[in-house]
């Protein structure tokens, strides 16, 4: 019986895709110019992660270790392309907002990473929960980075959220600083690294304080990543 609670906790915090595993940084830097963009990319990635984990866990006995990587890559690329085509055909308005993100999901090595590290050796239900947890952790990280950049860069929070989530979510759009000139640098790529670094530092300080107060050893930070 898998421990779903610890899978969820790993995905959201302990093994967070961006803040701990440092995976998927290419889409992270590219889309976190606003909270809404981060949220959209996060949700789209979550959907793909759940689907790819499900399929890969269900065929794990048939895939031999020698050819597993090309098998996973073709499955993930196919799935992303199918999602891209169906959104374009049947949810065209949503596609105009999300379309930019969909193609970037293939470049997110977190999806392949979870296939390799988790789904390939776990039963389907655990893999589904893992995909959901990792996806939500990714969404959380992207949304927070996006919100910080948006707040400092443009003085708003969740601008244009109603385009992504529908008119009912217009209440999320907040102008914190009216008549704010904006800081262009925050919207350009360098600020992506800057904000990620600062948030990472804050997370590490928090973990260390917590560990110190519990007088346990600080958690190890995984340093490996593709980009």
């Amino acid at each position, binding site marked *: 019986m898998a421990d779903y609670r610890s899978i969820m906790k790993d995905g959201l915090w302990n093994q967070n895709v961006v803040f701990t595993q440092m995976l998927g940084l290419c889409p992270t830097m590219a889309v976190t110019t606003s909270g809404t963009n981060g949220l959209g990319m996060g949700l789209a990635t979550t959907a793909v992660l759940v689907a790819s984990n499900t399929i890969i866990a269900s065929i794990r006995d048939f895939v*031999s270790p020698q*050819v597993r990587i090309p098998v996973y890559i073709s499955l993930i690329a196919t799935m992303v*392309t199918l999602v891209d085509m169906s959104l374009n055909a049947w949810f065209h308005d949503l596609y105009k907002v999300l379309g930019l993100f969909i193609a970037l999901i293939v470049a997110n090595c977190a999806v392949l990473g979870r296939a390799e590290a988790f789904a390939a050796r776990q039963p389907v239900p655990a893999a589904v929960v893992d995909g959901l947890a990792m996806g939500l952790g990714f969404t959380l990280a992207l949304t927070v980075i996006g919100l910080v950049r948006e707040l400092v860069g*443009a003085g708003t929070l969740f601008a244009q959220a109603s385009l992504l989530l529908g008119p009912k979510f217009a209440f999320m759009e907040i102008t914190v600083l009216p008549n704010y000139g904006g800081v262009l640098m925050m919207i350009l790529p360098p600020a992506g690294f800057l904000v990620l670094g600062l948030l990472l530092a804050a997370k590490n300080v928090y973990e260390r304080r917590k560990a110190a107060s519990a007088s346990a050893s600080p958690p190890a930070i995984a340093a490996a990543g593709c980009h």
Partner: protein
Amino acid sequence: MSTLALWRDKLSYQPLSLALIAMLTSAALAIGNLATHDDILKAEERDLQASLAQVLPDAYADNDLLKDTLKIADAEGKPRTIYRARKAGVVNGAVFQTVSRGYAGDIVVLIGVDATGRMLGARVIKHIETPGLGDKIEIAKAKWIRDFEGKSLGDPPPEKWAVKKDGGVFDQFAGATITPRAVVKAVKGGLEFFAAHREEILKGD
């Protein structure tokens, strides 16, 4: 399961399983493409129709612009598609794309003109300019693009078809001159193209 484990380590299992996956994924893509192809075309057509409606006031057309097209080669020999607006069969306006190079890449502008060559409207439909600086050319970000409405090649005079920094009549943005300059150039180029092919476009057959 044990027979599967035995098979799985054989050399021939590797290419065969890979081939099977490749076949299945290709089949899935082919089916996906068949299922979505027509709907994607329709959706793109609706998009185009929506942009056409933005640069051409309703009163100028009672026909289906998407079905009344004309292809004319521009000065560089590239064919341009012209959508003709008719009222009771008479061509009294045209919509077409015009392109010029901006700061980061090509800026594609869709413009609508009436039969005399006066601008009815312009919209930037594709660009990769810097967000926060150059993207004020989008109608969603600023009203700037509406400055072109009502202008024609003689009004303002040709030497005034430029941004203010270059002695023209159009505003530039703080921190971005190249982008609005490129849009002005694209629109002017479009009007010149229309003037050069006016008779061909207005002929209406």
